[in-house]
Structures are given as C-alpha cells and as structure tokens.
C-alpha cells in the first residue's frame, strides 16, 4: 500500500516547452491577468483566494499569489485543495494517498481561483468543483493552469492559461517546479 510517488514519471524522450525563464515570465503574466480580471487594486474588491490542486498546483498557487501581491500590493490568501476523495476514476487505479487540503480562509462569497499545472481531460477540475462545493459557496470560481494540452472530456475551460500546447494523447506533459523538483521547466515526451 506504499503510495506511488506521483509526477515522478519522466517522459522517455523529452522536449522542453518552457525553460526556467519562460516559467517565471508566464507566471508573472498570469498574475497580471488575475489582477485585471478580478479588478484587484481597485480598492473595493476582496482579493481572490488561490487554491492549488496537489501536487504541483500548490507551489504554483503560492508563486502566483506572491506575484499578484507583489504587483498589486494586496495580500492574496493561498491554500491547497485535494480532490482525491472526489475523483471519478478512483476504482481504475491503486489506492492513492490523500494530499493535504488547506483553506486559508472561508470561501463563501469569495472569488476562488483554482490553480493546477496541466489542464487535460478536465476531470480533476470537475472533482475540484465538487470538493469546493462541500467547503462553501464561492461567488465566482475561476481556473488558472500553466499548460493547457487539450483533449477535454468535460465542458471545462481555463480562465488563465500560461501556454496552450497541442499534444497527442500518447504524449505526456511534465511540469517541473523548483519547489518540488530540481528546476523549473515544462517538458513534452512520449508516455512510457
């Protein structure tokens, strides 16, 4: 029952889609977009709550939050939302360990921005919306992803996209973040 380390599968042959510098610039650009879209800094709006989806959504949310605070001068609460208990594919895979859920504040009537590394089928986000509903009733829920690789299986789209990457289903997109990996990068390779 030892948990399989997730995100640890490196693609066999890989191509770098985003370099470390690209990752930093992309996150900065997304931060500006969030500020603009949530009218942050206008003085009247409550800051959005950023909730990262484990594993890499969490450091991504932290970084995005830091940039947003830096650019707007407003502290943005960030936290984590584990969706494992809400997944619809649990019975297709070995038991997964639960990741942490950490809500920095109540989410009722707030703007919540879900943050994930890669948007693929949309099923994780569907699970996240269900999880969110059990924690409260946000005014608006938005989605920020570093990479949108297509192949949606549900009617879900992101509000903020770092980079759109057309992929084939046999490919795998890996996001590396220095907080949990050895460096920042986005890689594309063949699924093993």
């Amino acid at each position, binding site marked *: *029952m030892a948990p399989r380390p997730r995100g640890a599968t490196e693609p066999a042959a890989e191509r770098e889609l985003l370099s470390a510098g690209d990752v930093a610039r992309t996150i900065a650009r997304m931060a500006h977009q969030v500020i603009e879209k949530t009218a942050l800094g206008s003085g009247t709006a409550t800051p959005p709550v950023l909730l990262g989806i484990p594993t890499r959504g969490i450091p991504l949310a932290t970084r995005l939050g830091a940039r947003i605070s830096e650019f707007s001068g407003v502290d943005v609460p960030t936290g984590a939302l*584990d969706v494992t208990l809400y997944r619809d594919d649990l*019975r*297709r*895979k*070995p038991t*997964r360990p639960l*990741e942490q859920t950490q809500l920095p504040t109540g989410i009722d009537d707030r703007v919540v921005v879900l943050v994930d590394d890669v948007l693929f089928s949309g099923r994780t986000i569907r699970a996240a919306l269900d999880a969110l509903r059990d924690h409260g009733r946000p005014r608006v829920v938005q989605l920020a992803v570093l990479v949108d690789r297509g192949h949606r299986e549900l009617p879900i789209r992101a509000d903020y996209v770092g980079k759109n990457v057309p992929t084939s289903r046999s490919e795998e997109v890996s996001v590396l973040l220095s907080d949990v990996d050895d460096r920042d990068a986005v890689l594309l390779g063949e699924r093993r």
Partner: protein
Amino acid sequence: MKHLLTTDGLAEDAATAILDTADELKRTLLGREVKKLPTLRGRTVITMFYENSTRTRVSFEIAGKWMSADVVNVSAGGSSVGKGESLRDTALTLAAAGADCVIVRHPASGAAHRLAGWLSEGGTSVVNAGDGTHEHPTQALLDAATLRERLGALKDRRIAIVGDVLHSRVARSNVHLLATLGAEVVLVAPPTLLPVGVGSWPVTVSHDLDAELPALDAVMMLRVQAERMHGGFFPSAREYSIAYGLNEARLGLLPEGAVVLHPGPMLRGMEIGSAVADAPQSAITEQVRNGVHVRMAVLYHLLAGDGGERG
C-alpha cells in the same frame, strides 16, 4: 489491501498510510457543515454484528455514510442468523447480494479470517470489527491515531496496556500495532489475566502498575468484564481496583503530557477513576471521534482503489 483482519503482520507502511489518511480526513472534515464525501458512492458496505456493540457499529456506519457508501446493518437477532444459518452461508448470501465490504463482529476468534477465506473468490473485502478474544484492528488503529495526535511519532514511546489482557482483542491488536510503529509496550496485569505464551509477544510484562507509571508516555486501561469478576481470575473487584485501577493518586505518578486511553465502555470506579476519565490527560472522547476517521480511512484503503498492488 483486500481485507483488514489483524494488526499482527500489518506492515508499518500500510499502517502508517491508514493513519495518514485518517489524519487528512479529519482535517478535511473539520468545521464542515456537510460531512459527506462522494468517494464510495455506489459501494455497498454491510455490517454484520453477532455481538452487541453500539459504539463500534455506529462508528463504522457513520464512517461508511460519510464516504457515501450504502451501509446496511445486519444484526444476528433480526436475520436468518437467528434461524441457525451458518456464518458461511450468511456471508455467501451477503456477497451474492452485492456487498463490496463486510464488516464483521463475531464471538469466535478467527471468524473474520474464515469469512475472508470463503469470500476470497468474489471481490468482497472483510473488515474484522472484533473476533472473539483475537483482534480488533480498527480499535488499535484509532488508539494509535489518538496517541500520534497527542504524542507525535510513537517510536520509542513507552505505552502500558493494563488489565484483562487474556480476554482482550483490543490488547492483542494494540500490542502488534504499537510494536510495529516502534513503541515499547508494557503489559500490566495479574498473572491470571495474562495468556500463557505471552512470552513470545513483543512486550515486557509487569504486575506492578505504580512502578511503571512514572516512565510511561501513555497508559491504556482495559475494561474488566463482569463475568471475569465472578470467574475467579482475581479475588474481588475491590482488590483488583486497588492493585490495577487508575485512580487520581496514580494519575499523579504519570509524567506530564502522558495520555490516558480506554477503549470503552468504561467501568468508572473499577479500572478507571471517574475523575481520571474526565481529566485533561484522558483522550477517551478523542478516541471515539478518531474512530470514525480511522474507519473512513480503512474503508478508503479497502474500497477506493482498484484493489491492485501499489508499486
């Protein structure tokens, strides 16, 4: 993991995974109005209790319901069991009716293992909710969860289990789990309430509670059942209570921060003083609360995945 039948042989990483899941579930549900998780939607869990036990059955039932499983309760009184149907036939019937998991309490030691054997061909998981005087693994897991909460890691912690070890499935499950998690276990009981053969257990044995208390991180008091009091295992309830009861004076011998546990139901004034049960050292209410989260975690580990081996 297919079944949870004992803690004897339960690997440390498997035990820790369940405890970690229980911790996360507790945190995730903390302060929520809606406790229900959709995780086990469409799964059917049957509790089959051949012995009365409100607290354990209810704890499992709540755990299942909070995970959105369909929970069906079968009690020996109100079913074909009362008509003399064998355990095997009852089990096969429940499996055929579509049970994904059977939670069983039975007065015969080993009954849960037998059940698991009969159900091995189907996909039905078995959870041992107490078999005779053998094991009660979820009680040990919830005790460990409670101790971890109070003490942190259990490695090298010294924990005494006091009382009727001979007839206690709680003691057996705790001995193995605590040893697996690295704790030092001391059994404190009169010789008549220790099993012959206890020498092979990963424990030390003592007959002197007062001598043990000052070095303990936790003390787990076992219930003394009424029938033992008349079974000649010790001269009188009074003498037992004097030698092995945890009264206020003894509570004072425990180091600061030490924890008092009791699996319940308690006999206040017998094995545990009333004031002791309500003292800040007592984690008895937390045990009950953690029971639900631990049982949710067990159901999660048995039923949420595809049942395959994890790499």
